[in-house]
């Protein structure tokens, strides 16, 4: 009987000692990271398109930090969701189709001879990627445009197109070697044929 008591006492003492050590370590060695909102914001694509239902990426980051779902950002697509899942240590879920689909990257293009210079698109552009003044034709700075689509709707004469970014030798990406379907039917990855680059 007494031996059981001793065991219990010893365990209790040990538990409290380790508890104190752990508690102390937690306070003493606390890692001061970026506030979580900043970290989330850093992963969002900053397209500022509002498809998530918030007026920009930062507000959505705040909302995620407050517990909103992580799958509402179509421009970021699955890779952003995966990164967020990794950061927040939750399961990666597929993109919520309600907010849109993942589309290839595009940039806005203004058909300049039709532009009436109303400046409405300038006001809509979240990153000031459109140049122009009242009654002057406008043009998009391609390198600044995030492809958010927001300028298309306000244009009173419908002269803005979203065109996919052209693939040039400069931004071309090597494709992954493709697998030969006759060798593997179930899981991807093993036994691959080198035929990816044929154009």
């Amino acid at each position, binding site marked *: 009987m007494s031996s059981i008591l001793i065991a219990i006492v010893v365990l209790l003492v040990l538990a409290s000692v380790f508890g104190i050590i752990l508690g102390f370590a937690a306070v003493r060695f606390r890692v001061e990271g970026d506030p979580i909102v900043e970290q989330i*914001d850093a992963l969002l694509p*900053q397209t500022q398109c509002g498809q998530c239902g918030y007026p920009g990426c930062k507000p959505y980051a705040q909302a995620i930090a407050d517990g909103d779902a992580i799958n509402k950002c179509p421009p970021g697509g699955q890779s952003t969701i995966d990164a967020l899942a990794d950061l927040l240590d939750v399961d990666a879920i597929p993109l919520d189709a309600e907010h849109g689909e993942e589309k290839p990257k595009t940039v806005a293009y203004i058909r300049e001879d039709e532009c009436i210079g109303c400046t409405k698109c300038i006001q809509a552009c979240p990153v000031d990627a459109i140049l122009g003044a009242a009654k002057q034709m406008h043009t998009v700075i391609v390198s*600044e445009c995030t492809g958010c689509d927001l300028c298309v709707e306000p244009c009173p*004469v419908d002269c803005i197109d979203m065109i996919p970014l052209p*693939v040039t030798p400069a931004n*071309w*990406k090597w494709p992954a*070697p493709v697998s030969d379907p006759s060798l593997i039917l179930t899981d991807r990855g093993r036994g691959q044929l080198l035929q990816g680059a044929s154009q």
Partner: protein
Amino acid sequence: MSRIFSFHGGIHPPENKKQSLGADIRLAPIPTQLILPLQQHIGKAALPCVTIGERVLKGQKIAEANGRISSSLHAPSSGIVTYIGPQPVPHASGLESDCIVIDTDGLDEWTALSPILDYQSMNKMDLINHIRDLGIAGLGGAGFPTDVKLHLGDDHIVNTLIINAAECEPYITADDALMRERSDEVLAGIEIIAHLLKPSHILIGIEDNKPQAIKALDHALRTSTLNIDICVVPTKYPSGGEKQLIQLLTGIEVPSGSIPADIGIVCQNVGTTAAIYRAIFKGEPLISRVVTLTGYALGHRQNYEALIGTPFTTLLEAAEVNRKALFRLVMGGPMMGISVNDERIPVIKTTNCIIAATKDEMPPAQPAQPCIRCGMCEQVCPASLLPQQLFWFAQGREFEKAKHHNLFDCIECGACAYVCPSNIPLVQHYRFAKSEIRTEEFEQQKASHARIRFEARQARLEREAAEKELRRKERAEAAAKQQAERKLAEAAPKEVSTDEEKATQLKQLKTAASVARTKLKKANDALKNAREKGLEGIDKLEATILLLEQKANEAQQAWIDAGGEQN
């Protein structure tokens, strides 16, 4: 002779060099059309400085270097510029890129050249600018603009100049042939570089499978006053890799992420030295180079001196290609060259070799088997990486881990894929991973850039709103004052009379018509949408549309009445 070190790994693929060394360098025919990609070098593409229809002379500048790391372009023969725009270029993607196309006139008429005979008395900066002006870029691997390598900042002291004559890739003999036949040009080029860089010693790294070239160089060296060592290294691929050659000759490793100049070493390819010689002593820009034409689909396997911009077809035909046997066309060597699928692709400054291979010579890749972790790839990797591990990460898209395993130190030499018993296309896996990582980083950058702009705009909008508020208040006060004054005075209405005002009015009417049309279109779309989805309020929409139609017609009419044409 200085001591030779060694590097980790390496392989001994069949050399296949004898085939193209049977005859001397032959002049390739001038093609009817020359295609000159604006980007033949690392850095920014050159800017064309000729217009379509213009006649250019041989050696005339046709595109200007754009920025510090860029290289200008010259007409390789006389003729008419007929086209500037996308054409197939030698690039792994097989995509097109901007080129200048010249229809040659066969006269091969030179422009006036300005040789520098007494370069030693010339200002160094002028000399370097002269080299830059003549479009000299590395003829070995990546085509780095030579002037940049010759004009190092004051913080870089060059101890060692290494001339890369290793030519370790199988098949290629362009440098070998050049050294055999033009060793004096090579040497003169080296002397110019030495004059510019003032290195304390000069090493020529050459593989021991080129005894004739070594002899020719040795002979040429006898007349030189410079302290030049010919370092004969054992034949092993990739001893001609810049980093590997540096390790072979000096025992020093270039730290990861640095360039050789950071440790006081500059490497130049032998071909480049000859080009520098021509640029200085003859004033000739870089408009031709030695190209090895080899592979068993060719009847004449040998080295050609070809104009830059010569389409592969011309060369292949000159070498009597057997198109039936031709299976794979490779620009560069079999280990690192790129395969091209269009014979119109032109020779560029870095084209050292064209291999027209038969199916037996370069059979299609076997299907890959699972990695058995045999470690053969690791044994041969000249960068001492763990190729099997990198492969694993690249395949699993674990790019972070791949980066931690020094993926970016991989020189894509292909030694690992060469030995892999499971035929895994290792290099393509690494290239895939690298381009994914680069894109990701680029997008990250772009995203943070967009964030900054967004936040700046947000701040500006707030500021503007505050200012507007302030002005509104001021205006309200002023207006109240004016109101009192205006009651006293009466203004007469004005007539629209001048032409200018009429034009403005016309434009306004045009805009109004356009706006009305768009509104109508949008309403129609909404209606269609509503119909499809069976939403409520269709009648209301229809009414609106009627109204809009009327308005649009009115606006259109008003515009036409006012003198606008119908469209």
